[in-house]
């Protein structure tokens, strides 16, 4: 209560003394906010200290020192080197990367598929638009967990055992342990191909800026997209040919129980990605359709009467305007996909939640584990929405 007393004391000395502070809405508002903040902080402190006291009283271990201990469990798939002898910290990091992998690939595929289905939904072709409508209605209305179970069951019920794998061209194998693909044997030229790719990207970007400037000055257009595609694909290809065009492939071979070598797309990852992408893209398709329909018919007609080709009408007139309607709800769908990826535990994909759960079970430190899960998903969500907000601002109406 002290600050209230102080406040009234200073009021008494100033010019505004005629109005008591409790009749001044601005000051009253400030006081309410301070009090509200204090109550929230106090409540937070109380929860924290109460938890600490009770944990200590029951001699339950607290703190994050456990993450330095040896994890002692294996993880089915990992993007970085990992074995049971590594620490919990590394195990959790493997989980974070696995979640990122499925979220990143899933979000990209969802956007592409969503736009395709959304545009197909508006097609004047009866069959195409009906098919798209059926896709949306069916996938939108089945819970995503059921879809995951369905796809996962398909993988291990329909596909054959490793010894009876389906082979494609003698080097790609499909069985109930997933899809096995050959990879090029490491070669020094691969590094140069990477550099060539970066150079191609940079050149494409510079060319785009130059083309925009030229068009503004002279009105002449330049085929930026096909030219930069040629640069991005052509430069690494050139580097490859210059390096003697090495074609050695590491082909997966059946050894003991499973295939060894090559890369493996596991059924868990496949089912999770498929389930999440199909489910979320149905929502994205509806958002895309709504965005396009939000643009008045007059815009299309005006563009066509200027003599623009239908493709240019879509890319120059409709999409830039539709994107402003599409981006905000799209962001929340992308966030949904990222968060839904935690359903992975139901079908055995070792995402962050799965790894954190095992950690909680082995160490018993549930509070710390759940706090970590919350922080990681919060960071994912904030990064995604931060990026989408930046993109949204870039796409917003620019007044000249």
């Amino acid at each position: 209560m002290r600050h209230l007393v102080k406040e009234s004391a200073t009021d008494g000395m100033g010019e505004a003394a005629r109005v008591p502070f409790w009749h001044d809405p601005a000051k009253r508002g400030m006081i309410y906010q301070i009090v509200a903040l204090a109550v929230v902080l106090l409540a937070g402190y109380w929860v924290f200290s109460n938890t600490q006291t009770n944990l200590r009283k029951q001699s339950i271990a607290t703190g994050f020192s456990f993450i330095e201990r040896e994890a002692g469990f294996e993880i089915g798939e990992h993007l970085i080197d990992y074995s049971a002898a590594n620490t919990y910290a590394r195990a959790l990091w493997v989980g974070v990367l696995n979640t990122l992998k499925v979220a990143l690939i899933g979000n990209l595929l969802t956007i592409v598929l969503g736009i395709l289905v959304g545009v197909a939904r508006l097609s004047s072709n009866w069959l195409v638009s009906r098919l798209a409508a059926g896709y949306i209605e069916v996938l939108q209305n089945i819970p995503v967990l059921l879809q995951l179970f369905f796809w996962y069951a398909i993988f291990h019920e329909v596909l054959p055992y490793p010894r009876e794998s389906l082979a494609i061209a003698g080097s790609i194998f499909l069985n109930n342990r997933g899809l096995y693909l050959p990879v090029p044997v490491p070669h020094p030229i691969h590094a140069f191909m990477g550099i060539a790719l970066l150079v191609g990207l940079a050149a494409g970007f510079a060319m785009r800026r130059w083309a925009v400037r030229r068009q503004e000055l002279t009105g002449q257009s330049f085929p930026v997209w096909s030219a930069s595609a040629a640069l991005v694909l052509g430069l690494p290809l050139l580097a490859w040919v210059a390096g003697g065009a090495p074609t050695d492939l590491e082909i997966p071979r059946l050894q003991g129980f499973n295939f060894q070598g090559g890369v493996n797309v596991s059924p868990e990852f496949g089912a999770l990605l498929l389930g999440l992408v199909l489910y979320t893209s149905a929502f994205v398709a509806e958002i895309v359709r709504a965005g396009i329909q939000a643009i008045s018919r007059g815009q299309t007609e005006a563009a066509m009467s200027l003599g623009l080709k239908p493709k240019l009408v879509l890319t120059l007139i409709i999409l830039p305007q539709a994107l402003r309607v599409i981006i905000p709800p799209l962001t929340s769908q992308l966030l949904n996909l990222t968060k839904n990826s935690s359903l992975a535990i139901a079908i055995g994909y070792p995402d962050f939640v799965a790894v954190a759960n095992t950690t909680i079970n082995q160490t018993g430190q549930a509070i710390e584990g759940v706090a970590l899960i919350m922080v990681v998903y919060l960071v994912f969500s904030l990064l995604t929405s931060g990026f989408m907000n930046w993109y949204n601002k870039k796409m917003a109406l620019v007044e000249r």
Partner: protein
Amino acid sequence: MKLLKRLALVVVVCLLVAPALARGGETLDAVKARGHLLVGVNGALFGFGMPDEKGVWRGLDVDTARAVAAAVFADPEKVKFVTLTTQTRFTALQSKEIDLLCRNATRTLTRETDLGLNFVSANYYDGQGFLIPKKLGVKSAKELNGASVCVLPGTTTEQNAADFFRSTKMTMKPVVIEQNTELNQAFFGGRCDVLTSDASQLAGIRAVAPQPDDYVILPEIISKEPLCPVVRHGDDQWRDIVDFCVLAMVAAEDLGVNSKNVDEMLKSADPNIQRFLGVTPGNGKALGLDEKWAYNIVKMVGNYGEVFERNVGEKTKLGIKRGLNAQWKDGGLMYAPPFK
């Protein structure tokens, strides 16, 4: 301003009162005042803790809980079962949602210390094994190099499997699925070469296989899993009660007392039996229970042999032999200290 004062008052009261509330009373008093026990159980593990088709709870862990209720209330039905997952079981006990955890939990050093829990005498000695389709032609767990392994998460199983493969210099690929049913489906569908879990659970999983005879349990047992009821640190009297309720069932079998002959045994001349059944008083008072506590356990629930055979024994679907869980006289580990 009145509102503000009230708010401040509430905050202060919360701060002062909360630690006092957290301290609580003795567990036995709380249980008696409530009128029933709250016991955490598995809920989906045949033979250990699962309701039958009529909704009656059955299992070795369930009967252990009933034994405690019989000792405390002279009524084995004064128990409320709380279904817990591997994730929630210890937290529920720590936060006093339950008085006792009987959920096939393995006793380990860090669980006992870091989690602030006390594991009492084991009511089942288990060990981790491997279940594998016969057609793979594998005869020993030593031949499992490179195998995909289906694992039930959350127990000591994941770590045991990793330890086994590390110590034998083999590699494995774990497939960890949260729910038993989904995991079993993946295994029967051929997603994994082998499934690993406690041997008692493997017997149960094999029993529900489409063709049980197509699967074998490999001979190797790769871990020690003493499954024990669990209580919180800090209430030694309650710990002793639960511990001796488990041991009373073992002692009864050792002494030759069972639910059918317990009334005749009251007239036994053997001083050990007289002390055990409370004919010679002392044990009950020492524990803070009625002198008839052990009599009630045997009469209402049975001795360890009866409970074992009823729930997991050779006449049940699981068909598990006594093995490690036989009396010490018969080469097992079940050994109760003197009841005096």
